[in-house]
């Protein structure tokens, strides 16, 4: 089995429709909103304290949490649509050993999600920098911190896409996969924190902040491992379910 060719086929699937363009437009809209907020937004007291320190600015450009959700939706839609349109039949005909086919799908959405995360963080950092030119504050984030923000968002994008792909493979329905991804990444974590406060350190929002260097409750290494685990569990469930089910 030649992994490179089946991953290349999966990447061509992702890039041969308009879906990536739609997601890039979404990133652009978020970036524009960020730039406007930085340029004209104020705190409650009318000051611009929210951009007055390097940490404040880094927090504004930290995109990993958004990347996790946005790439999660990308992965969920990309894989669930394969089932909705029946194109997964060709996938399993060319790669009848389904674990390999599914892992190739995960690899491709990981790459695409990572790119979305990196581009999103890049747009976000650029938007903050552009917005700052309209204010009295300069760009204070160090190159190392900026690199950490970009790296965290890249990782979160890749992990989110794999998480969404796992849900898509399990649910096989686009609406269900989108709902499942939003439930898992947006709705359930705050509920879990309310029920058991000790989970607060391990929900996606905290972990992506920690990975971006903005939170100290868990180390960067632990945050990266935990984000990977958030992706691994749905991905494993998706893999097992695809292996066991008929393709209909």
């Amino acid at each position, binding site marked *: 089995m030649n992994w490179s060719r089946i991953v290349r086929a999966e990447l061509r699937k992702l890039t041969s*429709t308009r*879906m990536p363009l739609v997601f890039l437009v979404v990133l652009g809209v978020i970036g524009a909103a960020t730039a406007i907020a930085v340029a004209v937004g104020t705190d409650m007291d009318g000051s611009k304290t929210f951009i007055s320190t390097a940490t404040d600015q880094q927090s504004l450009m930290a995109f990993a949490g958004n990347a996790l959700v946005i790439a999660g939706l990308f992965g969920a839609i990309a894989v669930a649509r394969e089932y909705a349109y029946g194109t997964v*039949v060709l996938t399993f005909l*060319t790669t009848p050993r389904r674990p390999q086919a599914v892992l190739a799908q995960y690899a491709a959405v990981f790459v695409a999600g990572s790119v979305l995360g990196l581009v999103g963080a890049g747009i976000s950092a650029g938007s903050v920098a552009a917005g700052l030119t309209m204010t009295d504050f300069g760009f204070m984030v160090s190159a190392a911190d900026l690199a950490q923000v970009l790296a965290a968002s890249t990782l979160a994008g890749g992990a989110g896409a794999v998480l969404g792909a796992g849900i898509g493979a399990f649910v096989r329905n686009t609406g269900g996969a989108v709902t499942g991804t939003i439930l898992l990444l947006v709705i359930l974590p705050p509920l879990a924190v309310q029920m058991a406060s000790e989970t607060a350190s391990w929900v996606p929002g905290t972990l992506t902040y920690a990975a971006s260097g903005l939170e100290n409750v868990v180390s960067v290494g632990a945050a990266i491992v935990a984000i990977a685990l958030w992706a691994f569990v749905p991905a494993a469930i998706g893999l097992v379910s695809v292996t066991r089910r008929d393709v209909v």
Partner: protein
Amino acid sequence: MNQPSGPRTRPKSQSYPISVEHVTKSYGGATAVDDLSFVVTPGRVTGFLGPNGAGKSTTMKIMLGLAAPTSGRSTIGGLAYAELADPTGTVGTSVESDAFHPGRSGRNHLRILADATATPLERVDEVLEMVELSAAANRNAGTYSLGMKQRLGLAAALLCDPPVLVLDEPGNGLDPQGIRTLRNLLRSRAADGNTVLVSSHLLGEVEHLADDVVIVNEGRLVTQGSLADLRQSASLVRAASPHALQAALEAAGGVVESNQPDTLVVRGLSLDEIGENAFRAGIALYELSHHTDSLEDRFFAWTGDAADRTQSNTKEDQ
């Protein structure tokens, strides 16, 4: 559609019969395929017939490893589909007529397949030309007519120039010229020693295309064999006392239908046996000859009410 050229070289001596061995497939309490066995022979076009819900598509999915049988097995050249060294290079298939992303072009659809199978991208243009879809290759598949989708599916099946073709209703939506070209293409591939299995509910199409037929109904095998033999497996008898002759022939093991007052259609007995039984019963015969049914007549005789329902549904659809 034009005749294919192939990008791969394969030993001419290697042939790939399709074998379905006691395959059963149950979904919950419902049995879609019930102890089905048949063989599809290389070098011949085999029509796979049955009413809607007879189990054709399920059987094809089991052949291709897309569905797991509850029991039994299906092999291609002695191996399960997933065990083939080069599955897509061995079996070309079109089992879902609209399995395309509507926002992806026909060309990109085939390029994805070419990537996955390590097929040179130039071959994509060759098969597009072959199925006469070059002009629409850059249009999104969502804008294609049913016939164009069928052509794209056929192009995908032919991309790796496989020695086995498994096609589900490939003639659906094709215009008469397209059907004729498809027929010539499939017959030409069979003539080259390839294995061709085509499911269809268009009996007239199969009658002109197939050498052999496999007929299923309610998941079970109804009959299998050479189309010519199956159509000529009856004898026509006109006799002075048809009722007495019918009783005599049935007693001898024949299956007798009486559609007209003095005419019997007899199966299961040779012309000689019919003549001898009539002689022994003292019944004068006015005519004794081979009877050739149309495939449609035989199909309805074999599948009964289920086929009637399919036919009426098809007419309503049209």
